[in-house]
């Protein structure tokens, strides 16, 4: 398909954005890539969970399918997006940052950092919380790494009058103390997880255990596009709004589609959200940036596509950082939100089919990009999003899949969250805070 499509006059009105339907853009393809449904994405996905959870997963799938065709549900969610979250989120061109990517490159940031609660996470949380109300459940549980998903869940619980428990690795409660305080202010119970590596994957294990025991009144509000079906598909669909808005906004501003869409990939929800709208635009290069930590050769990273292999972890078959016995390997990232040994199954499928590519970004590269955006554009990004910024800097002006002239590249980066929570880590990294341990 051509890069030059008829230009819609404005960004879509959020009340018209469906949670489920993306327009079919390739008439020759029976199912657009954007609409591929679980439980399997190629060889990935499925439900690798105890039987005790199957009834709840079936109930959730059923509720989700009904809600997806219910205009009332779409209206309620669109109203929350507009009046509570602040959607549509703006698209910001960042020319002073773009100058560091390459001459003639235009860089646009999709500003999910400006959403209420500070990240894209709120899109999924509000969607699931609305579903839970329909199911009549009264308690939300969640896992969180960087704390953004925990804050978003605690927020939705407060908004809808539900109980909330958030599991967080003890190591992450230390790294993200500010977000722990925010969750508690919002009325949530934060449970530090002291087993295993004390990070995100251990928090997910604890959340699953809680869910198995309390599934009658409790919903596990999983925060990313991983886990058993229907989570990978459902969470993706709640985040589709990012890409749908961004696609229309870029078309409006530039008259054409971007050459590259870049996003950071931990579990992969912000990336799936923005990639989805471009999956059926073959001229758009989709690139996900994983946590390269101290470098792939150091073994201290969370790059599943560079250092992992297919396996099963926490409910889905996908790429997993594991040893030859299938034991999960420890991970490292300066960013708690990317420090996860598996990745959403749809990403595994996009990787294998070549529709998206995935590259590692080291802590150092991410921190350099973090500082660059602060100083060139006055925007403090989340450390997670800084990985996407660093990846974009590395892309340079030449893009392999593009037919656009070399002097007119358009790069769209999903700025998935803001860096308030990371100020302490960054302050120590750059020597502006002198006490305590340096990451």
């Amino acid at each position, binding site marked *: 398909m051509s890069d030059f499509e008829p230009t819609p006059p404005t960004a879509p009105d959020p009340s018209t954005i469906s949670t489920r339907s993306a327009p079919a853009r390739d008439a020759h393809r029976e199912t657009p890539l954007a609409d591929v449904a679980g439980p399997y994405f190629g060889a990935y996905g499925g439900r690798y969970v105890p*039987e005790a959870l199957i009834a709840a997963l079936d109930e959730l799938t059923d509720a989700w399918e009904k809600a997806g065709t219910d205009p009332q549900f779409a209206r309620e969610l669109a109203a929350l997006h507009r009046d509570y979250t602040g959607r549509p989120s703006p698209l910001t061109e960042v020319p002073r940052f773009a100058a560091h990517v390459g001459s003639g490159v235009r860089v646009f940031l999709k500003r999910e950092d400006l959403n209420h609660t500070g990240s894209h996470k709120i899109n999924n949380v509000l969607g699931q919380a609305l579903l839970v109300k329909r199911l009549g459940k009264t308690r939300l549980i969640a896992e969180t790494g960087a704390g953004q998903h925990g804050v978003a869940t605690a927020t939705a619980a407060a908004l809808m009058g539900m109980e909330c428990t958030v599991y967080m690795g003890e190591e992450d409660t230390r790294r993200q103390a500010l977000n722990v305080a925010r969750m508690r202010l919002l009325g949530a119970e934060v449970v530090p997880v002291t087993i295993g590596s004390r990070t995100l994957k251990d928090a997910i294990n604890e959340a699953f255990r809680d869910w198995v025991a309390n599934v009658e009144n409790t919903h596990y509000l999983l925060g990313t596009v991983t886990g058993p079906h229907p989570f990978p598909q459902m969470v993706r669909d709640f985040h589709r709004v990012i890409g749908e808005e961004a696609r229309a906004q870029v078309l409006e501003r530039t008259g054409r589609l971007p050459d590259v869409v870049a996003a950071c990939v931990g579990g992969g929800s912000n990336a799936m959200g923005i990639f989805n709208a471009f999956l059926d635009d073959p001229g758009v290069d989709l690139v996900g940036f994983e946590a390269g930590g101290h470098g792939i050769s150091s073994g201290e990273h969370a790059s599943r596509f560079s250092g992992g292999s297919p396996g*099963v972890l926490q409910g889905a078959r996908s790429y*997993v950082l594991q040893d030859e016995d299938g034991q999960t390997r420890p991970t490292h990232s300066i960013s708690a939100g990317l420090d996860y040994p598996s990745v959403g199954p749809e990403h595994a499928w996009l990787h294998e089919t070549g529709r998206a590519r995935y590259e590692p970004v080291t802590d150092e590269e991410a921190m350099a990009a973090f500082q660059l955006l602060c100083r060139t554009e006055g925007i403090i990004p989340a450390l997670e999003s800084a990985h996407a910024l660093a990846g974009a800097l590395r892309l340079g002006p030449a893009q392999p899949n593009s037919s656009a002239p070399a002097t007119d590249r358009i790069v769209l980066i999903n700025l998935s969250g803001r860096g308030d929570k990371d100020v302490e880590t960054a302050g120590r990294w750059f020597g502006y805070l002198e006490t305590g341990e340096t990451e």
Partner: protein
Amino acid sequence: MGSSIRAIERARQEGRAALVGYLPLGYPSVAGSVRAARAMVEAGVDVVELGIPYSDPGMDGPVIQAAADHALRGGTRVRDVFDAVSAIAQTGAPVLVMSYINPVLAYGTAAFARDLAAAGGAGLITPDLIPDEASEWIAASDEHDLDRVFLVAPSSTPQRLAMTSAACRGFVYAASTMGVTGTRASVGSGAQELVARTRETGAPRVCVGLGVSTAEQAHEVANYADGVIVGSALVKALGSPDGPDGDYEALQSLAAELAAGVRR
């Protein structure tokens, strides 16, 4: 006929339920887990369930997770399970391996089935593999005549109970309660009903696990189930993972009490 079926049928002929005892491989060491399993069999355990330690045991409570962590820190490998199974099987008791699915996938499902059968293992219990996802394992276990134990839960629908019962070879593992492994004051009140509902779907043998820790509870469950599965309590009896070695006497003593419980 798989060997766990023979053990359950033998117990049935004695007018009682079978006792299934769980221990993790590599706890307190690989050799120690073999010694512990033999001690259990001497004390009257009918079937040994030997768990492969896994880094993310989502279905297990803190006691078994701590033991699995200890085993992994001690260097226990998946391949150690075959020698251990072979050594324990010499007691005459069938040995079922319990494993989360990823270590089996990493080893290779077909190779795992082949090597387990060659070691004299009875089959495999899969806490995070439901029949819906198990076509590869179903084919491999059929080929090597291995028992195939899937779980049912109080939340399972009649359709899923029927599907799971049909997919199992050996017995159906009924999780007594919604929750993870670990000792509880009482066995879930829904366990008896779950056993009955599972039998109604045609399952010839249903064993109950999760929450059984005392002789009294074992006796109670034995009244309505074909087998009683005990895990965390036995692991606890074997001692703290930080201790120098296992307390085999305490383990044997508890196993004997439980064995008496199912024979009462």
